[in-house]
């Protein structure tokens, strides 16, 4: 039997009250959180053995210390400063040569000033590693708190 408009209205009216119904919490969320606390706290971190966690944290600390030592040994800050200087110079050169870019005859004379990036890249990678290590440790400290 095909449905007609009245049938649809009939059904919608029948379910209207159920659609508006809200169920009171009555301690349900507390029970859920208690169950989570008991069995699944820290999303499986409890499932890892204590030794695994300690090794994980020690490895993070080791990486951080090595990154700092290499940064200091290679005088990373001087690299960063020189990179900043090269960057500023590049911008300056770009703006100075900007008008000549439209003059095709001068294109052949232009030489790009390429900075020494190999060492700088190493320093940047170390900085990123340090930042990641610090973020990891911070997250761990926050969890402990």
């Amino acid at each position, binding site marked *: 039997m095909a*449905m007609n408009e009245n049938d649809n209205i*009939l059904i919608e009216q029948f379910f209207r009250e159920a659609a508006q119904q809200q169920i009171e919490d009555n301690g*349900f*969320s507390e029970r*859920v959180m208690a*169950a989570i606390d008991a069995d699944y706290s820290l*999303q499986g*971190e409890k499932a890892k053995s204590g030794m695994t966690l300690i090794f994980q944290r020690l490895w993070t600390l080791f990486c951080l210390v090595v990154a700092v030592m290499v940064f200091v040994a290679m005088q990373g800050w001087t690299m960063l400063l020189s990179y900043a200087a090269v960057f500023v110079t590049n911008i300056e050169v770009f703006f100075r040569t900007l008008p000549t870019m439209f003059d095709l005859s001068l294109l052949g004379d232009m030489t790009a000033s390429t900075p020494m990036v190999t060492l700088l890249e190493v320093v940047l990678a170390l900085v990123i590693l340090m930042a990641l290590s610090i973020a990891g440790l911070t*997250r761990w400290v926050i969890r402990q708190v």
Partner: protein
Amino acid sequence: MTSLTDISLVTQVAVFGNQKAFDKLVVKYQSLVRKFFLHQTMGDSQLSDDLAQDTFIKAYVNIRQFRGTASFSTWLMRIAYNVFYDYKRKEKSLPQPLLERRGEDTLGAAKSGLQGDFSPPSQGGVGGGSVGVRLDIHSALAILKPDERTCITLQLIEGRPIDEIASITGMPSGTVKSHLSRGKEKLANYLKQNGYERKR
């Protein structure tokens, strides 16, 4: 705005393991999830709460799998749907006497010759079919097949569009439409047979 708040709470749970943020999500969605189970189990509140608790625990454990492509409530309802169908599968493997007892408990006051969740009601439905008897939503839902019941409750009670129902149940949209159409037809006949039309 709502989804932004949800995503922010989910992020706090996933990244920092912040349980208070998850508590907020449980408080916010407990009614939705428990209501869904209450309709699937046709009024068994104890069973509904157990299944709802399983749903939230599964959501917590797998929260890092939430990608934000659908809303959090759709993702949560998909888990709820899977929890319910896992339960149905396990229930099928229970010994027969236990299953029958569960069927009696489930329908409670609305029982009218139903045996388990899947059987149609006896002729005349709840209250022997007399006109003027107060019809219960759960006994009306009991005449539907499980998939029809799920689609009907998701659309008529939760107001979800067909594509969301398809996303929650994993059924193709065409199948959802078929379930809705058949379910509505059965419900319309049932309501008419029980005099609901005349009460309007």
